[in-house]
């Protein structure tokens, strides 16, 4: 079995045994209630799509971000990192597999948001382009895992990972156009938003929820995929470099 699949399955096992991992996923309905309440209060039912999609994307980002910061740290804490590094498996592959496991589960937040909107607000958000919507979600999940791998490589170098994680949440929700579409942001921000896969994902997903035709879906999917792949490559470099460094410093097991 490949180390990636082993790590992916292992992460799902860990989650099954310790539901703390799912805490962030549990927040999706809460955000849905908040955003839909704002939309209703403002008398803008046309923004319901934004209000339902945003919590799912927020959960996806936040859950993957938390896991990326904790995978290596928790293995260090349990004293497992050294035995793991001594196996033939690559640490990067293991980290990516575990993050992907969490990312996949986080996609459940989409279901949570839709169900919350239906049950509590009586709002049904239709999906006029179901296949494209499904593909976009899968590609978004891939890009999220790749981006989280970069975060894992960065977080593990700092002893204040939690603070770092917090600072990478809301700014990215803005840059990712999660709630407010990027097109409505000031012009000078736009170049920045275009290197954040989330902005492409959010725009594409919203378009798949509208009745009109979706413009350039293949190109946009390709860009999301490419940004995820670049993230995965950078993550690999960072984690490999990290491993070389801690093996040289002798700090692999330091908590």
């Amino acid at each position, binding site marked *: 079995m490949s*180390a990636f699949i*082993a790590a992916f399955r292992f992460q799902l096992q860990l989650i099954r*045994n310790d539901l703390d991992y799912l805490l962030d996923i549990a927040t999706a309905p809460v955000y849905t209630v908040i955003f839909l309440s704002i939309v209703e209060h403002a008398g803008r039912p046309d923004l319901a799509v934004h209000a339902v999609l945003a919590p799912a994307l927020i959960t996806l980002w936040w859950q993957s971000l938390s896991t990326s910061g904790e995978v290596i740290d928790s293995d260090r804490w*349990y*004293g497992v990192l*050294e035995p793991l590094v001594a*196996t*033939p498996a690559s640490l990067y592959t293991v980290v990516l597999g575990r993050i992907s496991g969490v990312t996949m589960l986080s996609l459940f937040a989409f279901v949570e948001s839709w169900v919350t909107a239906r049950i509590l607000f009586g709002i049904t958000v239709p999906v006029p382009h179901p296949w494209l919507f499904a593909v976009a979600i899968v590609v978004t999940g891939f890009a999220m895992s790749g981006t989280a791998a970069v975060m894992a490589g960065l977080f593990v170098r700092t002893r204040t990972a939690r603070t770092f994680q917090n600072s990478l949440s809301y700014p990215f929700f803005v840059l990712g156009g999660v709630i407010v579409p990027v097109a409505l942001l000031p012009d000078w921000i736009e170049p920045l938003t275009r290197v954040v896969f989330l902005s492409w994902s959010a725009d594409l997903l919203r378009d798949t929820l509208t009745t009109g035709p979706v413009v350039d879906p293949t190109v946009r999917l390709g860009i999301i995929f490419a940004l995820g792949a670049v993230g995965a490559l950078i993550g690999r470099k960072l984690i490999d470099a990290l491993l070389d460094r801690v093996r040289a410093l002798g700090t692999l097991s330091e908590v």
Partner: protein
Amino acid sequence: MSDDLAVQVRDLVRVFDTRKSFRKPSTRISALDGVSLELSAGEVHGLLGPNGAGKTTLVKILSTVLLPTSGSAHVLGLDVVSQAKRVRPLIGLVFGGERGLYPRITGRQNLRYFAALYKMSDIDAKKRTDALLERLGLQERADDRVESYSRGMKQRLHLARGLVGDPKVLFLDEPTTGMDPLAALDFRNLIRELNDEGRTIFLTTHDMTEAESVCERVTLIDRGQVLATESPRTLATWITRFERIDVQSAGQDVLNTVERLPGVSKLIRRDDGSARIETSNKDAMGEVMRLLVESGVTSISTSLPSLEEVYVSLVGDRGLTL
């Protein structure tokens, strides 16, 4: 490197820089200072030394999780630095103590995960895991969370994890720490079994009895330097050149005469009337025995010093408590 060697270490140096804050200059601590060592394939080799002697550092370098500062180390002919990826499938690593396992999942799940990291198929991983759980007596609790295991059970699971990749060389870093005496005895028997299967075992320990009972050769290490590498029995002859004699109820006159014999290096009189005579050459042994028998002393026994005595003699009064 000879094909017969499982491990070869040459002039290995490992220095750690410790910096407590940016304002203070770093301190350099030498954990290994020119260590050279060879293990034959299929050997059980013990590494003995006080805390801070460099035992764990050496194991970490050999198991590829730490880089040396200088010198070289090979496992089964492969360089642990430049060929680490090829070394890893051939070795198993076991640390002692409570940590080193995922506590919130079961013992079986821990093993299955590591089996998968050794790239085993699902079927092979299941077979291997079941066999190891059975062999280490963990089958009944295999599906309980590790956090509910006793220390001894965790230690056995550690060993199972170290064996999951079917290693040719097994590194055990103080594996019996915290085990009760019976469990430690079982553990030693298991080490013999593993050795009978042809595995090379490199064992660091504080336990002299353990080293004496399972190791073919022992390396004594202190302050990052090798003091000696020999069989436990050979090491024993180093501090009392040859055998020593314990006697019961020998009169003071006899003991005084013995003490004056050439070649008798030490005579220890005990409150219970017994005494221990240590000789510094082989000829003295026969002379002492003859004198004791002629003087009517009937309770006489000879022995070699224990490894612990050798160890204390070589390491000095820093002992085992550092």
